[in-house]
């Protein structure tokens, strides 16, 4: 994929979920919840966007919409480039399956083909530092080992557009350093990165612009400092 073509163009996108009501008769109550409400923005190659917002402000919905999980209810979303999304690093392994089998399981979940996964296996096993343990079922693993494997699989994928929901931390101090370095390469290799996090230091390190979401609306899109100020104002509003 030619990097220069990679872009995201969102025009007035709205995502509204149907609300389930008890009972069959219509009560005239609100029947849909707007998780995203008229959001517009343009992202070009080189964009490192931090996504800020309180819980329930629509961060995850926006990321999932960009990943193609949720179709837009109205508006237009135009995207070019290979998308990789990491929403849930701790998503359950199959406990009865071996580490190796779980690599295939998770690779499939990340949208990879059989051959693509097979190519990635040696590097995943090596990075996870699991050695012969890779042929043992996951239920024998310590939690640190499982976390190391999860991280190694999810970050083995390369893409043009990288969508991350919270930064991933894994294992002991030595592995953590290695993991941080790998995340940085991953972010560097991708053309566009959208990262949702509550960790402001991390965002300052990794991002060059930020969006603030509030009740599904994009209330700010621009430089980091103003974004963080705006976000903190909204956060204080609820604390009062």
């Amino acid at each position: 994929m030619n990097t220069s073509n990679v872009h995201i163009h969102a025009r007035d996108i709205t995502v509204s979920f149907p609300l389930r009501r008890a009972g069959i008769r219509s009560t005239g109550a609100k029947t849909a919840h707007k998780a995203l409400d008229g959001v517009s923005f343009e992202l070009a190659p080189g964009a490192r966007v931090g996504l800020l917002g309180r819980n329930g402000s629509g961060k995850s919905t926006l990321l999932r919409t960009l990943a193609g999980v949720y179709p837009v209810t109205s508006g237009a979303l135009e995207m070019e480039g290979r998308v990789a999304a990491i929403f849930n690093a701790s998503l359950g392994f199959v406990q009865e399956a071996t580490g190796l089998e779980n690599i295939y399981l998770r690779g499939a979940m990340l949208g990879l083909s059989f051959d693509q996964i097979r190519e990635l296996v040696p590097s995943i096993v090596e990075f996870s530092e699991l050695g012969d343990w890779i042929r043992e079922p996951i239920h024998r693993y310590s939690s640190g080992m499982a976390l190391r494997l999860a991280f190694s699989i999810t970050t083995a994928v390369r893409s043009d557009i990288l969508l991350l929901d919270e930064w991933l931390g894994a294992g002991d101090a030595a592995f953590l350093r290695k993991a941080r370095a790998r995340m940085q390469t991953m972010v560097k290799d991708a053309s566009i990165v959208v990262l949702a996090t509550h960790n402001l230091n991390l965002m300052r390190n990794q991002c060059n612009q930020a969006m603030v979401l509030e009740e599904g609306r994009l209330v700010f899109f621009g430089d980091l400092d103003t974004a963080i100020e705006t976000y903190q104002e909204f956060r204080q509003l609820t604390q009062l």
Partner: protein
Amino acid sequence: MSFAWSDMAAAFPRLRIWAYLAFKQIQFEHRRSVLGSAWIVLSYAITAAGIGFLMSQLQGRPVEVHVPHVMFGLAIWNFISGATIAGADIMVTSRSYLLQMNLPRSLFVLSMLLRLSYLLGIQLVTAFVICLFFGWRPTLEIVWIFPAFAVYLAAGFGTALTLGMVAARFRDISTLVGSCMRLIFFFTPIIWAVGTARDQAEGFIGFLVRWNPFSYVLNTLRDGLVGLPPDPLNWTVTLAITALVLFTGILALDRMGRRVTYWL
């Protein structure tokens, strides 16, 4: 119909990895037990042969006729009810995948059908061995099981798509389907039989055999295994049902497939 076609076109290139996963899934289910995957063969062999023998005595039918009738019938029923019940749940059980990636919806249906096909294969081979012991012999009519199975796959695909989409929106459907299938099991000549000629059956049983669509579908595959020639009526009814569910399935995929993640 554009969404439905592009969904199905995107599903097939990914089929290899999901076929592997479907196969592995069967192993995982039994891995921690001592006998492991052998339980798939054992639990089927014990119940099917046991029920077959019991029912042959109850109905006064010769074991070499009734044991194959029941054993093949149960294996086939496991596929039919599996495709229907798991099909109704398919979008809901695939939730964690569908919320992670934009994956084709029909992929999950195909993967589920593959898993059921593996199980059907294992159970049919088990039935062959046990039925040979009871005096059953395969005949040339057995070749008809291949086209019949192809029709089953198409019917299962349509059924699972139809029910899966509707049940993702209206969750009561899957419970309803489960209850219905349990009842239909008893209302279909799987473990019991009425003799070869349909006209012989009278009263309520006759009504069941004539008007229960599942008996036609089941017999379409079982006839070849128990040495009966293909019955035009069985095939006509089965093909008509298949065409109908394929149509509703593709329609449901097209109309609801894109938005199905909203309801998960």
